[in-house]
C-alpha cells in the first residue's frame, strides 16, 4: 500500500448525500481483475450525465455529502477511487465498511462536521493540501483546519503497513485464546 503523508492537488465537490458504492462502481465491473484498470469503472454510469463534477478533471481529493460510500461492502469502490488517483475523501460521515476498506488501501477518509464540509464544497474545484502527520488541511481560501483520525489508522497510512503481518505478531495470544475458547464454548465449532 502506498504510504500517505502529504497530498496537494485539485479537490472536487460531490454534493449529494448517501453516494453509495453501487454508484461509485456498478456491480458488473466487480468481476474484473484489478489489472483491468478500476479507474475506468469509477462512477461509470453516473458520469455519463452532463456536468458530472469529475468529468474532465483529475482530482486527488473529493469533498462529498454525508454517508459517502454507504451500501455494498465492495472494496472495488475503493480500488476505483485509488486507481483514478484519488487519495483523500472528506465528508461528514462514511459507510463503516467503506471507511475500513479505504484505510487498507491508502485512501484517507476525513470526517468533519457537515457545515464545514458544505463550506469547503462551495470553494471547489480548487487546489488544497492534506497533511497527515500534523492532521491539518490547508483549504483553498488559505485557512487551516485540523482533523481527527484514529492513531492506529494514521500509523498504517503513514507507514503503508500490512496489517496481516502486524496481527501475526500476536500469534501466541491468538493460539492461547483458541485453546481457552475451545474449552469454554465447545458448541461454537461446526
Amino acid at each position, binding site marked *: 500500500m502506498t504510504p500517505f503523508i502529504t497530498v496537494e492537488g485539485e479537490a472536487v465537490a460531490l*454534493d*449529494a*448525500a*448517501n453516494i*453509495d458504492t*453501487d*454508484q461509485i462502481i*456498478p*456491480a*458488473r465491473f*466487480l*468481476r474484473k481483475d*484489478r489489472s483491468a484498470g478500476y479507474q475506468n469503472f469509477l462512477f461509470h*454510469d*453516473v458520469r455519463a450525465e452532463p456536468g458530472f463534477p469529475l468529468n474532465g478533471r483529475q482530482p486527488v481529493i473529493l469533498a462529498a*455529502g*454525508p*454517508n459517502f460510500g*454507504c*451500501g*455494498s*461492502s*465492495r*472494496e*472495488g469502490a*475503493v480500488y476505483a477511487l485509488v486507481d483514478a488517483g484519488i487519495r483523500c475523501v472528506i465528508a461528514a*460521515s*462514511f*459507510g*463503516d*465498511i*467503506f471507511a*475500513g*476498506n479505504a484505510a*487498507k*488501501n491508502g485512501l484517507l477518509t476525513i470526517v468533519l462536521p457537515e457545515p464545514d464540509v*458544505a463550506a469547503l464544497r462551495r470553494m471547489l474545484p480548487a487546489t488544497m493540501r492534506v497533511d497527515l502527520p500534523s492532521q491539518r488541511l490547508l483549504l483553498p481560501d488559505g485557512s487551516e483546519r485540523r482533523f481527527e483520525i*484514529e*492513531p*492506529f489508522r494514521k500509523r498504517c497510512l503513514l507507514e503503508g503497513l*500490512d*496489517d*496481516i503481518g502486524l*496481527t*501475526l505478531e*500476536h500469534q501466541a*495470544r*491468538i493460539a492461547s*485464546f*483458541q485453546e481457552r*475458547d475451545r474449552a*469454554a*464454548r*465447545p*458448541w*461454537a*465449532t*461446526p
Partner: protein
Amino acid sequence: MAETLFAKVWNAHAIVTRDDGATLLWIDRHFVHEGSFHAFGMLDHAARPLARPDLTFGVADHYVPSHSRALPIRDPEVAGMVTTLRGNARRHGLDLLDLDDPRQGIVHVVGPEQGLTLPGLTIVCGDSHTSTHGAFGALAFGIGASEVSHVLATQTLWQQRPRTMRITVDGVLGAGVTAKDVILAIIGKIGAGGAGGHVVEYAGSAIRALGMEARMTICNMSIEAGARAGMVAPDETTYQFIAGRKHAPRDFDAAVAAWRKLPSDPDAHFDREVALHADAIAPTVTWGTSPETALPITASVPDPQAEPDPAKRARIEDQLAYMGLRPGAPLDGTKVDRVFIGSCTNARLPDLRAAAAILRGRRAAVPGLVVPGSVPVKRAAEAEGLDRVFQDAGLEWGEPGCSMCVGMNGDLVRPGERCAATSNRNFVGRQGPGSRTHLMSPAMAAAAAVAGSITDVRRLA
C-alpha cells in the same frame, strides 16, 4: 455490571485490545462467495495459508444463473467467477456449497439453514448483508476484500468497538404489515446513515412475536440504516429453529444453556434509544434512490417545492427525475413494468408463502421473476405447490441465487423500467443501468404484480 447482548458477544471474542482502542476479535464463521476472489488473490500473493479452513464456508450465489442449472452459464466471465471460487475452495480445503449442491443458495439464507449461524458467534462475510445473521443473536457484519484476506490468514479481525443503539418496536403489526415494512419504516425514520457506527439491537413485543425468517429480514437491512450490525436476542423461537439442523451443536442442551445468558441485562445501557409503535406501521414502499425514502403506501411522493432546505430540495428533485415520478403523486397506483421476488432479504419460505397467498388464483399484469433463497427453500416451496401458483400467475420461477437484486448474473431490469422488488437496495443503477426500484414486502410485490401498479395489499388480501 449490566451488559448488552452486543457487549457479551464482543467481550467473549476479544483477544487483544490495543491502547488506541482497536480490538483483535476472534471470528467463529467466515463465508466466502465468488466475489471473494480478490481476497484469495491477496493471500496467494503473500503465500499465506488459511488459518482455519474448517471455519470457512464457500457459497456460490452472487453470479449463479437463475435459469436451469443443467445449462452452461452463458457469459464466460460470469462462468469464470464460479469456476474461480471452486478452484480456491478446493485448493484451501473449504466446504463449498457449489452450483450442484443440494444446500446451495444465498449465503445469508444457507448459513442459518445449515445451522452454521448460532447465537453468540462472530460471523463475517465479504457482503454487507451479513448483518442478517444477527437475527440469531450473533455479531455478524460485512467486510471488504482486504479484511476477508485478513480473516482467511488469521481467523481474526481488528475492529474499533462500535456504539450501541436499541430500536424498540412494541405493539402488534396490522394485517398486511410484515417485517419488511417494519425495517423500511425504521430506515425511513432514522435515515440511511442513522445508525452509522452503531450495532443495533431490535427489541420489543413486535420483534419478539416474529419468526426467525422475519427477524432475518429486519437484521438484513440494518446496513441500509448504516449500522455496523443488527441483532435480536435469542429466545425459544431461535432455539427451535436451530434444533436438528446439520451443524447444530451436538450437545444442544449445553449450547442452549450458554445462549440463555446472552440477552441484554434488564438495566443494560445503550448509547441511543429509538422507539416505534407497531400499530402505526403501514405497508411501506420506497419512492427514491435510497432506502430512507420509505413511506406508507397511503402517502404521496414528496413535492420539492414544499422543502425549504435547498440541498434537500435538490436531492428530492434528482431522485424524482431519476425515478420518473411526478412531485406529489400518490404512491398507490404508480405503474410498474416488472416485479422481483427474491434476495437475502425476502426469499425464504414464509416470504414465498406470503407472495403466493396474494397471487393464488390471480394473474400478474406484468412480467416477474421469483427466485427462492436456497435449494431447500425451493424444494419446500415446490412441495407446497407454490411454484405452480407463481407460474400459473405468469411469473418465472428461478434457481436460487442473488439474481436481480444486484444483477451480477445478468438478471437485469432494463433502462427506464420500474420494478417492484422485495430486495434491499433501490440505488441508482442497482438492478441495472437506468433501473428504477421500489422496495416493498413480498405480499406488496405480489399485489403490484396483480395490479400492474404499486398497490395497497390490504385491498387484495
